[in-house]
């Protein structure tokens, strides 16, 4: 590279235009790619979101965003609202746990999915597994309580991950309570 330096004219303009041209070129490439991929990406995202909601409420035929509540969706079957899919969040062992909760119209949890978390692999992340999740199905807010000794009425903590279990349960409970409040509002 050293000898190139001597051959080139080092005027400010020449050097400056060099980077400008590089940027121009790269912007063209990015713009082109963006033009192609942006619509596809948007479509993919919507598809994915719908899939996630569908996984939670299997019966639903369609989802409709609820106005005034970001991220809230109503699950529709035959035009009737059968459940709400709402975001839930809670502070776990090592950071925020972001979840999606499906709550039935009568205020019972149907299922939930963990969107992102920072829990210890192999321990806290077991909260995503069906074994733990199944405990929630059909429970109302008052039964969403973590206990050590197993019982049908409550949630039994994951071994070695009590904090995560509590966090998930707390997040879901809050979501259920919010939905209950929302439906109660609507009924009025």
């Amino acid at each position: 590279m050293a000898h190139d330096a001597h051959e080139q004219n080092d005027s400010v303009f020449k050097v400056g235009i060099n980077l400008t041209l590089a940027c121009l070129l790269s912007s063209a490439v990015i713009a082109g790619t963006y033009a192609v991929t942006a619509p596809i990406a948007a479509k993919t995202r919507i598809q994915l979101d719908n899939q996630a909601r569908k996984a939670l409420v299997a019966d639903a035929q369609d989802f409709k965003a609820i106005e005034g509540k970001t991220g809230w969706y109503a699950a529709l079957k035959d035009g009737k609202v059968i459940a709400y899919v709402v975001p839930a969040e809670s502070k776990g062992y090592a950071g925020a746990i972001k979840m999606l909760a499906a709550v039935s119209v009568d205020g019972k949890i149907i299922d939930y999915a963990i969107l992102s978390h920072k829990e210890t692999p192999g321990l806290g992340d077991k909260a995503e597994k069906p074994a733990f999740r199944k405990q929630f199905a059909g429970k109302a807010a008052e039964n969403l309580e973590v206990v050590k000794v197993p019982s049908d009425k409550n949630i039994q903590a994951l071994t070695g991950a009590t904090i995560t279990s509590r966090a998930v349960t707390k997040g879901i409970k809050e979501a259920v309570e919010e939905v209950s409040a929302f439906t109660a509002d609507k009924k009025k």
Partner: protein
Amino acid sequence: MSIEAKTKIEIDNLMVSASPHIRCDESISKIMWSVNAALAPAALFSIFNFGMPAFVNLVICIVAAVVTEYLILKWQNKPMVIGDGSAFLTGLLLAMNIPATLPWYMPLTGSIFAIAVAKHTMGGLGFNIFNPALIGRAFILASWPIAMTTWPISRDMVGKVDGLTSATPLGILKLQGYEKLVASFGDQATMYKSLFLGERAGSMGETSAILLLLGGIYLIYKGYIKWQVPIVMIGTVGALTAAFGGDPLLHMMSGGLILGAFYMATDMVTIPITTKGQIIFAIGAGALTVLIRLQGGYPEGVCYAILLMNCVTPLIDRLVRPVKYGARR
């Protein structure tokens, strides 16, 4: 042989070395074996307390440590110093820091890891930066957290509590609160007594405060550890827990504090070399213990507190030097 003749004894191969020409009787093996001996009562008590599984894990840890050290020394063509008792000590300390009921492969890998990675990657005895036994424990805890936090109940608790496992006192404190903890023992006095005598769930060797203290006093008497370190560390924990509204006596006697303060925060290889530095180390370790116990994710923090202070040891050694002759006046 006449006296005159004896002066003519073949003395053309005298030993020449730099001064001094006499040395004290201490040696590394003497120190190491004394520490082993000081730990022996508590180790035996753990067998008494937790039965056969404790014995098996003790043997696994010690044999694995000694054999690993032997193989590594052999492989590296280093002088064979297996008899100095340091690998034995690592194995013993590791065993005392784990629940008695771990399945065999956990203490085995932990012990091998402690000797091979924590000790010998850095050059063996004298060069390791972290306490090998504690690295071994942290390794097992990180690898198999569930097994490492499942504590068998002690001999005298059989029948008094449901099931065969129980949380440690600090575990109960963390998740269920102080009242529940006291209730689990009956009353406060019983709790202190049980903690003092070792009738509680916990790692194999950490339960009996009295036996650990006795061993510690023996080591202080022999001059192998300095009294400042355990006293300051335990004192810091007591003072800070009291300041934050905890039960200082409970905190001072539970967890691995006594074991850690007397036997691991005094591991000369991994702590600062000056007494002043060691006191800073002890304060730091005590404070971190309290921080982890009260604020952290674990109910118990001695192991990590000491490891964290091990990281800072070189810095302390750089900053805290002995007072030089000529600098005092």
